[in-house]
């Protein structure tokens, strides 16, 4: 009698063990029986290292160092400034359809989430998080020089981070060209709207 009742409890216990553990978070990392060189004694990009005090294996480049290829670009193209350190008035690159298409594509990747496709500053981040983003189409920003726009993309402005790291200078100038086109289209549209 007792034995059979106890036997009847076994499936319940098993069920509790198996089902009860499902969905429970474990404080331990997963079991990994065969190491198989999945984790190696080398420094991976963006990895951590116990050697450096900040825990990063990536080290910032030292001031004044010049890597191979760093001088391939004209300094004004790379920095957006002329020899005396003044911000350029006009874009140093030749504009054509390829550059404009590239600018539109890069804009869609890096700028659109905040600035929206038209440059009104009502991107998806504004919708979700009410991140205040200025429009390109006010008087002040229409008056910015090409170099000023490039400088803002490079170093950021206000809440905006600098985008020098993910976007090479040529692409930044292409985005500048695209922003200029958006502004120009709005000016033309406003003029048409005012005309009749």
């Amino acid at each position, binding site marked *: 009698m007792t034995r059979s009742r106890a036997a009847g409890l076994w499936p319940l216990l098993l069920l509790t063990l198996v089902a009860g553990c499902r969905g429970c978070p474990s404080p331990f990392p997963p079991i990994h029986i065969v190491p198989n*060189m999945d984790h190696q004694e080398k420094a991976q990009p963006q990895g951590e290292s116990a050697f450096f005090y900040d825990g990063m294996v990536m080290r910032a480049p*030292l001031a*004044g160092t010049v890597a*191979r290829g760093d001088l391939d670009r004209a300094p004004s193209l790379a920095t957006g400034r002329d020899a005396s350190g003044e911000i350029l008035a006009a874009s140093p690159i030749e504009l054509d359809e390829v550059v404009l298409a590239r600018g539109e594509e890069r804009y869609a990747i890096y700028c659109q989430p905040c600035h929206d496709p038209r440059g009104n500053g009502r991107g998806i981040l504004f919708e979700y998080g009410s991140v205040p983003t200025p429009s390109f189409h006010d008087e002040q920003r229409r008056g910015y020089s090409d170099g000023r726009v490039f400088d803002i993309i490079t170093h950021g402005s206000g809440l905006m981070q600098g985008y020098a790291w993910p976007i090479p200078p040529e692409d930044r100038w292409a985005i500048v060209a695209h922003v200029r086109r958006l502004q120009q289209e709005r000016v033309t549209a406003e003029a048409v709207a005012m005309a009749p």
Partner: protein
Amino acid sequence: MSRAAQEYWRSREQRDGDPSVRPFVEREFQEGASELPEGVSRRSLIQLVGASLSLAGLAACRRPVEHIVPFVRAPEDMLPGIPRLFATTMPSGLDAVGLLVTSHEGRPTKIEGNEVHPASLGATSAWAQASILDLYDPDRSQQVLHQGQRASWQAFVDAWRALEPEHLADGGARLAVITRPFASPTLARLIAALRARFPQARVVGYEPVGDELILRGLEAATGAPTLPLLHPERARVVVAIDSDFLLTGTGSVAHARRFADGRRVASSDGTMSRLWSIEAVHSLTGANADHRLPLRSDQIAPFVAALGSRLGIGTGLALDAGPATFDSAWLEALAADLEAHRGASLLTAGRRQAPAVHAAIHALNQGLGNLGVTVEYARLADAVLPDTTAFAATLESMRAGEISTLLLLGANPLYDAPAELDAAGALAAVETSIHLGLHTDETGAATTWHLPEAHFLEAWGDARAIDGTVGVVQPLIAPLYEGRSAIELLAVIAGEAAPPPTLPEGETADAAAPPPTPEPASGYDAVRATWRQILGTTQSLALDGGWERVVHDGLLSSATSWAGIPLAAGTGATAAPPASAGARSASDVALDLVLVDSPRVFDGRYANNAWLQELPDAITKVTWDNPAMLAPATAAELGLRNEDLVRIAAGDRQIEVPVWIVPGMAPGTVAVELGYGRAFGGRVADGVGANVYPLRSADAPYLVAGVRVERSGSRREIAQTQDHGSMEGRPIVREATLEAYRAHPEFARKAVEVPHTRALWKEEWSYEQGYQWGMTIDLNACTGCNACVIACQAENNVPVVGRDEVRRGREMHWLRIDRYFAGDEAAPQTVFHPVPCMQCENAPCEQVCPVTATVHDAEGLNVMVYNRCIGTRYCLNNCPYKVRRFNYFNFTKHTPQVLRLQNNPDVTVRSRGVMEKCTYCTQRINERKIAAKLEERTLRDGEVRTACQQACPSQAIQFGNILDGASAVAQAKAEPRNYTLLDELLTKPRTSYLAKLRNPHQELAETHQVEGHAPAGSGQATRDHGDDSA
């Protein structure tokens, strides 16, 4: 013509059929290779396994937690995973090597040559390749020490400021600086500033191994201390007199490249230079010689004198009164050859020879019209030269209490100064001694202050190569520890202030007055201040980006070489020469001890570099030791065998080293490498080999005459690789004389008959599309310098296994250099034979792998899939070329954190139980292929360069697409000298060799034909090889 295969031998034991080497030939896995290390019994193993199994469910099997640590503000131009290249310069005594360093996310990982550097043209030495390991050396000095206690730089600067007034008051009469010799504009400027501030201070250059004797000899002959710049590519006859200009001599990278250029024979009507070598110790240069005369050290000066008198050129050397101990026919042939090539010959003497010999060599070069053609002299600007006399005088003053503050810049006299100078006693008499060094070495442990030095990859600087090229030392990473450079230290001592804080790129720094409390100039400021002067004199540079362009290129390209220094007309060495160093007593039983600069650890500065310690020496194939090298005949006379421990005694000082018999050593000579036997060198260096410096005297630094050598009775096993990977009796290396080659251009291909018409395995792939990678190695260009071996190790994360494992035949070098001797063991001929993976199209290894861990890809690479490998080692057993390496242990498990930073992130770090081998640097191929694909083009020839090819000073290695008929590798493979190893197996190797050529002199040509020695088991050579492989 060419030799039969049986005439080559790897070691005397192998040639004579000594049973001790049979295991290395017959057994793929050495005795004990599969067993556990000593001291682990089967029982304890089961206990260990049981313990680890019971722990299995706990922490051991959990996946390690890894975090992503990105930049908060990512720097421009640094993409994770995309390496960048920085040009820099490695200072090396009075010379410098231009480098291009690969940086992965701001960490330097690999050193290559700077291809725009006019001296090296992109090549490097093994030392330059290995210096990346020195940067990450965990034993480097990490903190400022005061009396052995931790202190800070500020504490040191304060202490110096307290000492300063006293030295300023007496003009620095009680201040001395002992520095390693250097050629650097900034260091020279700071030394000048120091001298201006302390006019009485002494600044002395001291180095244990250097070119002081050459400088003194050429100063006597030409009026200025100088070093020769050789142009062997312009010479038809090159004579090396006790000189190792191809490996350890100053400027060797450039010299090796030019020497190889003079010996490239593209077609069967090509010509090549002829190298004669006269030396006591078997050096790499001697091994490359067409004619080599082993001659005792003290006979070399008489030989030069005899050569001079034969040529009718006054050398100023005294002729030996006694009977000539050298072969007069040999001398006659050499003299005839030199006479026939006046103005197109070159003589050079090594750094061990006395100044009088160098003066005589200058006279000979002048008399033969070589000066300005094949021999130029360097203008040693911005340099502090070595001066042992001044060094000894300074030590004397120290002992007399005349010096109160001593500054040691990189020098380590307590380890390497001649014993009779008693550097330790002198140092103890100084009140304040300051030592700047990479390690807390023998000297650093004894000084009042020890300051950690920054590695050259950590600090700004500049350096001049001997051809005059000034290079910038650009840092690749911020100092890992508290290190600072000699420039930064001298800026403190010389009182150079930092420029007032303006714009970082400000050019108006010198206008303003110094601030009231001047900060010492940073290394960058000091170097910029020097270069403002250098660039100011070169107007054209302003147009070209100026300083940024110099840093980018790594050198100032417009102010480079010059056509030699002006020489005082007719200054032959007419003055009475100093007595030749170390005159020997007439006794015949006394031996000469020659102290050799090590091709691995040099003077001891690379002693803590495990790559160099494990690098088999080019000639002896010894690792992890500095044995006493003896000629076979001398060893027989003394009754010594290999690995017998002997006591070498000079006066009352003695050392104990094992014997290593080296064919080709001069009789009556025992040679030991310097730089070993460190006490405070670091974990790798300490206790390896014996320190020979105590036997040295200041008068004759490289020769101790009349030493006693006696057996101590015991033996010490030497870890050496000369019998490893033997392919006995088969025509592995092929060579011919230039004349024979002209008559039979196809000699190499016809050296073996290929018996099979069908391959052993079905050929399923035709390899006719895309890129098909192949390599050629020109044995005629290869000098055997080992740069490729270290380059491969650095690129491919090849582990170091240690002395015991090398002894068991478990060394891991993917690329080994086999050294073969041929002929008379008193004066053998040598062939170097680099062996990487052959990348066979019909690879025998692939057929036997049960888990397809080694397979072929569509581009002809025999690839390893590491994580499929279960370690059966069948592939290794089946490889006819013995190029596979097995991880018997987890050699990388305990890699210190800092050393992990050196590993190439693009290459797997292999674990225990995994087979590995050369992959033709497949990661480099893929990196370039991705880059080309992004640019929507195909790869250009020469775009992919393997690590070994890139490092090679003599450009012996070509690599590329063999389907592209215009590629360098396809053209090399079309040469008649091209042959593949073990052709008869029809494995279709992608790596092929260009046979070696020799250019013997007509009159000595018959001695070139040596009778063959049948090696042990030579019967195998004639057997049909297909049978034993099938």
